[in-house]
């Protein structure tokens, strides 16, 4: 039975893990468009980014950027059953809550059972979707039983759910309605505590009871509220803030050129793609030749360069994000399918086979979201590239809500959109391609907006859960092949985890060479990892 | 009339500056008012009566301005006086009653407040003194002092006019200038107000310059009558003289325009035509275009005021040289 014992997985260079002296402050610049509400309920999706990772910690941290490398957190180890329907966590000893109370397996079981009681808190549908049946604690062990193979959900329950203290959440207001409890003074096991929070700024201070001895090195984190990118970027450029997580237009001139200590590394994690409407009611886009033509015509690197200012890499037709998930990527399949390079001639020919030409162009409209300036720029490039093959593209930017409405209900020809991902391409592609995620036109589809219905592909996804590593890789390659064959969506660029950082005083940042966590401040619980790695140079 | 006049107006000229050039609304008016005298000023609408009154009281504001002449009141020339000195004299010695009391009373202040205003501008008075004096003048004009608390719109037209007169009499001035104080009123109310003014004048001894367009109204009340036409005085003299033997064709026309309720019914003619445009007055005699007895040289020669008996008239026909009568000095001063 394969088991993961995580103590060996960390292979980062020594200097990164070398002990540091404490001290220093990090300021995060991550525009939220609103002032802080000072609520830290880790199950409130509007503000869990400010508590999970900082205050609340998961059982195991999974590093998406590093082949799912795992770091044991509140669970020191775990053991799957053979059928992967049951998992036993061994809970770490010697952990205390930030209020000094001891942490135990009870807290873990309490947390998961609370999610059952309050479905609103079950953000990842563990009890309803993943088939979680029971969570029990005994001694320092916590056992979770599932009705089906649950390996793909490991990422969700082990990595994403922050563990909360029973002694707080089982009394008073918190017990009465934990789902809407404001949790203004969060007590967690994480490296930081909130002190104080105001509408304009959250200040975190180091948790003196933190279980990782000597950590965190950084003693204070400032998280100011920004209403707009402009000032947030300005603070980054001036080193008023050291940790940035948003798009900076003209980043070279505006940010990198300002100081040699300003750096950026934005690793790709998912795709931004053209979603064609595959429903037969949409005659043109449900035609394979048309989709193939589009996929062949678009010069993805040009879109990435002009539309995204080179800050996002080009995507490929398999939908496997590279280099992040290169392990699942089959480059030869791509070239043999003819999508390695843009091919206008082939595209023109395909269009001709569908009955369109430059003189008799196919009129298509593509919806996108108002205000996504980089997307608009990308689409402008795409429009220019599609014109010669006989597609007259109209770009229709919509308000977010209207866009969502049309997208979810299938009321579009083409849509420009990106979906969330996970530790492997499985998560993103299953959302997009799995037929159960679809819905008839006029009904809200949950993820499969293009309405791709292919039982064979469904089967591939179904096998994935119980499969071992190698099989999983092969399954993903097969799914990539389906992407090349059916062109259900047309990935154009890869969306990234925006990340800018300043090294004047702060060291220990995740880098391309040492991608120990997703680097953006909006990736949880990765923030916790970053925060325990950062140190102040002046304090050394 | 005994003694020197308290008000001597000489050659008063007023112009309105307009886009289309100056409008001379008052053109060389002379006027004397003696102590306790009642001087009636009549004329058609737009002939410059109000303008003249405001000029006398120095109340004109742009675009109107005095362009010449003098107004000597108690020996001081008001035209050249500084605003400060003028303020001392105003209301104590010279008060004004305006054409429409509705507009002349501040709509947002009570009658009492407006009386108090006037008093406080001219000295220190205790609240009690103010109250007492206000009640006194209100009773004088026959209004219950409870109305001191009333606002202008709460009073009837007649009461408003009386309140204005009460205000004018606060300091028992020597001269009260009245601009058609009765024209908005009914015949009955008009009559009673006129009688009251006359009565007060007899009691308190102030002089009145009373403007109206209704000649018959002043017939019983005024001592001197001044007939204005086109910004000029066309006839002036003792009231009875003017009524009995009007010398100017315009005065005659005016008198002919009143049907009587008691005399024999005769056909009247009125005066054909309309008053002159003061921006471009006709050459020669201003009345000449409407005059039934106009002669050729009326169009050329601007007549002066000629003495005709006790009165003076601005008509060439009254020119003693023309009539062969002994030459009188043109532009003789008003008054006997």
């Amino acid at each position: 039975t394969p088991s993961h014992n995580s103590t060996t997985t960390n292979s980062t260079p020594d200097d990164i893990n070398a002990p540091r002296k404490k001290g220093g402050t990090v300021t995060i610049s991550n525009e939220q468009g609103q002032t802080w509400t000072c609520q830290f309920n880790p199950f409130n999706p509007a503000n869990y980014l400010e508590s999970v990772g900082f205050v609340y910690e998961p059982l195991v941290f999974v590093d998406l950027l590093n082949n799912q490398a795992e770091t044991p957190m509140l669970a020191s180890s775990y053991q799957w059953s053979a059928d992967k329907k049951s998992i036993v966590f061994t809970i770490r000893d010697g952990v205390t809550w930030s209020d000094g109370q001891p942490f135990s397996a009870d807290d873990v079981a309490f947390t998961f059972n609370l999610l059952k009681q309050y479905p609103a808190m079950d953000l990842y549908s563990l009890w309803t979707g993943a088939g979680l049946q029971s969570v029990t604690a005994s001694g320092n062990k916590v056992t979770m039983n599932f009705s089906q193979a649950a390996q793909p959900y490991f990422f969700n329950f082990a990595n994403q759910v922050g563990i909360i203290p029973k002694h707080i959440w089982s009394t008073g207001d918190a017990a009465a309605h934990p789902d809407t409890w404001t949790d203004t003074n969060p007590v967690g096991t994480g490296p930081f505590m909130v002190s104080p929070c105001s509408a304009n700024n959250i200040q975190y201070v180091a948790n003196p009871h933190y279980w990782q001895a000597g950590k965190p090195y950084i003693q204070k984190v400032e998280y100011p509220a920004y209403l707009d990118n402009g000032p947030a970027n300005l603070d980054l450029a001036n080193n008023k803030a050291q940790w940035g997580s948003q798009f900076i237009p003209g980043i070279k001139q505006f940010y990198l050129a300002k100081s040699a200590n300003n750096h950026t590394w934005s690793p790709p994690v998912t795709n931004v793609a053209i979603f064609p409407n595959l429903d037969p009611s949409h005659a043109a886009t449900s035609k394979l030749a048309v989709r193939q033509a589009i996929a062949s015509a678009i010069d993805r690197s040009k879109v990435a360069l002009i539309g995204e200012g080179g800050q996002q890499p080009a995507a490929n037709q398999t939908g496997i994000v590279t280099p992040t998930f290169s392990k699942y990527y089959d480059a030869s399949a791509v070239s043999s399918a003819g999508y390695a390079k843009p091919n206008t001639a082939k595209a023109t020919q395909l269009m001709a086979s569908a009955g369109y030409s430059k003189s008799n162009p196919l009129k298509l409209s593509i919806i996108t979201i108002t205000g996504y300036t980089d997307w608009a720029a990308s689409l402008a490039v795409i429009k220019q590239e599609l014109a010669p093959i006989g597609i007259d593209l109209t770009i229709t930017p919509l308000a977010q809500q209207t866009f969502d409405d049309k997208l979810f209900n299938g009321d579009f020809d083409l849509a420009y959109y990106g979906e969330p991902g996970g530790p492997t391409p499985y998560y993103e592609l299953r959302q997009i391609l799995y037929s159960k995620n679809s819905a008839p036109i006029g009904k809200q589809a949950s993820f499969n907006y293009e309405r791709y219905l292919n039982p064979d592909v469904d089967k591939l996804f179904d096998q994935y859960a119980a499969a071992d590593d190698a099989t999983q890789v092969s399954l993903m390659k097969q799914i990539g092949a389906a992407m090349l064959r059916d062109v259900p969506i047309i990935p154009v660029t890869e969306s990234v985890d925006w990340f800018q950082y300043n090294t004047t005083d702060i060291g220990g940042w995740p880098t391309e060479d040492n991608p120990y966590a997703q680097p953006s401040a909006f990736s949880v619980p990765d923030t916790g990892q970053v925060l325990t790695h950062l140190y102040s140079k002046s304090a050394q | 009339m005994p003694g020197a006049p308290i008000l001597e107006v000489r050659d008063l000229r007023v112009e309105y500056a307009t886009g289309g050039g100056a409008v001379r609304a008052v053109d060389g008016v002379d006027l004397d008012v003696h102590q306790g005298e009642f001087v009636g000023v009549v004329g058609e609408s737009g002939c410059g009566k109000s303008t003249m009154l405001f000029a006398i009281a120095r109340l004109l504001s742009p675009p109107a301005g005095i362009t010449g002449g003098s107004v000597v009141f108690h020996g001081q020339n008001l035209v050249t006086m500084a605003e400060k000195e003028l303020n001392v004299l105003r209301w104590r010695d010279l008060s004004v009653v305006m054409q429409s009391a509705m507009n002349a009373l501040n709509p947002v202040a009570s009658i009492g407040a407006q009386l108090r205003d006037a008093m406080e501008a001219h000295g220190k008075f205790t609240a009690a003194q103010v109250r007492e004096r206000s009640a006194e003048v209100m009773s004088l004009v026959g209004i219950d002092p409870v109305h001191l608390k009333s606002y202008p719109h709460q009073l009837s037209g007649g009461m408003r006019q009386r309140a204005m007169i009460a205000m004018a009499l606060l300091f028992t001035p020597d001269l009260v200038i009245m601009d058609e104080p009765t024209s908005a009123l009914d015949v009955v109310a008009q009559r009673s107000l006129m009688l009251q003014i006359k009565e007060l004048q007899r009691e308190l001894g102030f002089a009145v310059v009373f403007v109206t367009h209704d000649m018959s109204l002043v017939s019983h009340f005024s001592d001197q009558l001044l007939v204005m036409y086109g910004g000029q005085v066309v006839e002036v003299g003792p009231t009875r003289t003017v009524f009995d033997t009007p010398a100017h064709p315009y005065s005659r026309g005016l008198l002919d325009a009143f049907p009587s309720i008691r005399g024999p019914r005769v056909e009247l003619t009125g005066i054909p035509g309309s008053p002159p445009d003061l921006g471009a007055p006709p050459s020669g005699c201003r009345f000449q275009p409407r005059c039934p007895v106009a002669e050729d040289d009326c169009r050329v020669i601007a007549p002066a005021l000629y003495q005709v008996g006790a009165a003076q008239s601005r008509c060439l026909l009254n020119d003693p040289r023309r009539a062969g009568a002994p030459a009188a000095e043109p532009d003789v001063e008003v008054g006997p």
Partner: protein
Amino acid sequence: MNYVLRRLGFFVLTLWAALTLNFFIPKFMPGSPINALRDRTRGKVSPAALQQMLTAYGFKPHQNLFVQYLNYLGDMFSGHWGVSIGATLGTPVSTLIGQALPWTLGLVGIATVLAFVLGSLIGIVAAWRRGGKVDSILPSVFVVTSALPYFWVGLLLILMLSVWTNGFLPSDFNYDNTLQPSLSPGFIGSVLKHAILPAGTILITSIGGWILTMRNNMITTLAEDYVRMGRAKGLSNRRIMYGYAARNAMLPNLSGFAMSLGFVISGAILVEYVFNYPGLGYLLYNAVQNTDYPLMQALFMLFTAAVLIAVLLCDFATAWLDPRARAKG
């Protein structure tokens, strides 16, 4: 009394109409808070959980519309405005509004009142010195400033006093983030410094209107007989200017002032947006962007009620200052 009742009747009716509009407009618009929240969580959280979550926070779109309407009306009046279901999910709307209100009141309110008072004063003086130097250039200048777009003036000010001068004046937010709110001089100084540009923007764009209307009213009033009467009475110039002319000229402006509060709010949105000022306008902008019905509705009601109350107060003030208005009833 009758007058007061009539005005109150109007107040209630208008508020009701506005509230009803406020209730139905979002109902018939596309988009839903769930979708907005999905976007916000970058799709990581399952729609089902979000649905549950919103229900937990009191969002019940499937209830009978009429019941919803009645509940809504009741809640609006009783101050149970619910909790935000947008980007600030779970925060009581009253808290959010409570946080933003002082800033808007402080910045926009003071700037607007200042513009009104200063503008009126300048207008009065200009009309009084009719034909003077001030009066001859004043209308042209302020006709121009009164037609400038708020946001553009804001951008210009930012460019000139912040960008070109290397942040001589802060161009965003209400105070320096590094400071903790307190009554310390440093904090107050920071608040004031942050307020200069947005307040200046409001002042520049709104003062012109007041100057012009006040000047025009004043000119009309100065031609009234009672002003002349004041002179005839020998009153001092000051007394005539303020006691007679200005007081009367002010009356028609009062209701205009109340009405203008509505425009203030619109200006506030743009100004707060340009200067990233965390006030009510910004809150509304965010609420709309995030389909935050409870917040939107509470704000909308607040704005309407504010304008209505202002109108009502100005009505009563007018009635108090103008006996004629009282009589009309």
